[in-house]
């Protein structure tokens, strides 16, 4: 369990949660970004927090700094996204007046009462006319998620926020529930408990027909690309455009060509998936995920570089960053690849069904949490039980 090594200052009544967390950050003894194990320190945001369940105490969410400075959209949301910078103690005073606040679950020093009030505010229905507030900057909000498969608990007490335009990498041992978390966010599975709020809509309780409409704003890149093997590349990429738009075929052809050019696969329209290499299939899968009109706002990647050579891995990672920057999408990447982890704005590690660690790549690399350390550095020995691999053959 991680939290920043800080003094947990009690929340002053009437003060803004965002300001409190930044004050707490400024008062940390440890160097910024360095995470220490929670040890015996009690914390409202610690694992043993009362009925609210395990909420990982971690540094506040990093805002995206990859957004283009030439944000072309005149609307408020993209303007705010463009203005975001990585937080620093010097920004604390300036940030005080900003509307954006980090997740209540991850704000240190916040009392239970304030957290509940903020959560209640988030739960209010979005009538579309509400002024831009903290909710708009968090594209994905997960609260108290529990998912079981039969009797087996896969994920529990998951609380996570992903800000607009950021890239979250999710790592963990094989079978720990990373792909399941991604499918929950994509609405392909339903949680047993908890909320999954995507752009203000709680998809955990949404009926399937409405969920289909929500999913049109998302793109999903599957581990094996999941291309339709009876369609060629053009038909695969055009699939969503044909089913969800009334665009003429000429327009669809242009969009497909643009997306294939973006992923470096011009001229492959007539090929079948069986005729493509693994890397090419993944790129077609990515082109299919982003070939929507309007483009998706969230992209979910399930181990996009699995099974690829180092060069193709780097190509895919570059593409993910490029798509994030050009399309201003919020990206969530499930990965084991260190390159993908390092390019992320924040990294979450899942272990034993909970979020073991959450922070920037640098913070996780510098951590002394033995679980994270064992995973990142690839040690066979450690707190993560991998079975009796040292038994004699």
């Amino acid at each position, binding site marked *: 369990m991680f939290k920043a090594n800080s003094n947990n200052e009690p929340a002053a009544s009437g003060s803004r949660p965002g300001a409190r967390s930044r004050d707490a950050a400024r008062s940390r003894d440890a160097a910024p970004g360095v995470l220490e194990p929670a040890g015996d320190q009690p914390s409202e945001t610690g694992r043993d927090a009362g009925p609210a369940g395990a909420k990982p105490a971690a540094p506040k969410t990093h805002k995206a700094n990859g957004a283009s400075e030439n944000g072309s959209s005149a609307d408020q949301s993209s303007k705010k996204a463009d203005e975001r910078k990585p937080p620093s103690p010097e920004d604390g005073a300036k940030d005080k007046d900003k509307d954006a606040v980090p997740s209540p679950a991850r704000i240190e020093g916040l009392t239970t009462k304030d957290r509940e009030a903020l959560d209640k505010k988030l739960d209010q229905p979005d009538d579309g006319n509400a002024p831009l507030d903290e909710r708009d900057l968090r594209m994905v909000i997960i609260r108290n998620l529990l998912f079981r498969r039969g009797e087996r608990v896969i994920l529990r007490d998951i609380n996570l926020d992903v800000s607009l335009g950021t890239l979250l990498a999710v790592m963990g041992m094989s079978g720990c529930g990373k792909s399941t978390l991604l499918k929950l966010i994509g609405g392909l599975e339903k949680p047993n408990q908890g909320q999954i709020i995507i752009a203000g809509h709680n998809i955990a309780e949404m009926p399937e027909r409405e969920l289909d409409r929500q999913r049109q704003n998302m793109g*999903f890149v599957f*581990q094996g690309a*999941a291309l339709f093997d009876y369609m060629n590349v053009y038909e695969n990429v055009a699939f969503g455009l044909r089913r969800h738009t009334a665009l003429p075929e000429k327009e669809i052809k242009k969009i497909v060509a643009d997306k294939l050019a973006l992923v470096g696969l011009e001229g492959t329209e007539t090929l079948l998936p069986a005729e493509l290499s693994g890397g090419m299939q993944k790129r077609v899968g990515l082109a299919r995920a982003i070939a929507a009109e309007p483009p998706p706002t969230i992209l979910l990647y399930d181990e996009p570089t699995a099974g690829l050579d180092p060069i193709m891995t780097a190509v895919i990672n570059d593409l993910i960053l490029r798509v994030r920057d050009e399309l201003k999408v919020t990206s969530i990447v499930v990965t084991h690849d260190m390159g993908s982890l390092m390019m992320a704005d924040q990294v979450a590690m899942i272990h034993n069904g909970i979020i073991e660690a959450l922070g920037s790549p640098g913070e996780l690399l510098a951590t002394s949490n033995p679980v994270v350390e064992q995973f990142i550095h690839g040690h066979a020995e450690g707190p993560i039980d991998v079975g009796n691999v040292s038994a004699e053959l």
Partner: protein
Amino acid sequence: MSTAAGYITRQKRFRGVPVLTPIGRLVTALLVFIGGMVELFLATVSGIFHSIVDIRLGAVERRVALMDFLEVVRQMQVVSWGAFWIAIITVSSSGMVIAMETVQQLKNFGMAQAFLGGGVAYATFREMAPVLTAVVATASVASSMTAQIASMKVTEQIDAIRAMGVDPIRYLVIPRVVAMTIMIPVLAVVADYCGVAGGFVIASSHQIAISTYTNSIYQVVALQDFTGGIIKAFVFGIFISLTACLRGMRSSGGAAGVGKATISSVVTCIILIYLFDTILTAALWPS
């Protein structure tokens, strides 16, 4: 004491040979299957209803409805390619066999001229054509449907369909169910003629004229024998396609899972065909 020892001995014996567990598992599997079929049937009907009603909503819905209609046509082609020739050959052969088996017996009673044509047609219209067409369609088309959908399931293509906001029931199941429901009766009608023609081949070898043969058919066979057979084929079409799609969508476990789902689909379809044949025969032609 001896009673207690005997009781303990009997318990051990029963513990080593479980009786209720496999029965319980079978009943559970049956209930799960029935529940799945009902759910899929209702989802299919609902999807068809929405496909038609949503046309008025806009250009996108009209385009999707057109695409779905073209997919139905494509699936009808698949069914006909897969089952047409086999159904013709099978039912023609069965017509010949019925004629061969009965002609000598009828001759012994001097009734071959009067009843051979009618007998072949009666058996063909009511039983052979719908049942054999359905069995043939199961072996060739339904197994292929299950294999295709199952392989899509294990390779996450169905998840990809859902992830793009498309209902897999509407995209995969409805075209197949509609196509089978239309084509099985059509094939059964074609098979009716082929079965009767096959019977005539044998009849002609016994010097029975075609006019005699066809008069026999008109005298023996009623319209409800023909329509009853079509109704059977219609019901078989619905159940075969739903079963094939359900088994495919519930498969798991990679290539082995695909194989298992395909076998399970064929076996279940054939059992359902004969089960519903019995029920429908009793219902359509009560004695």
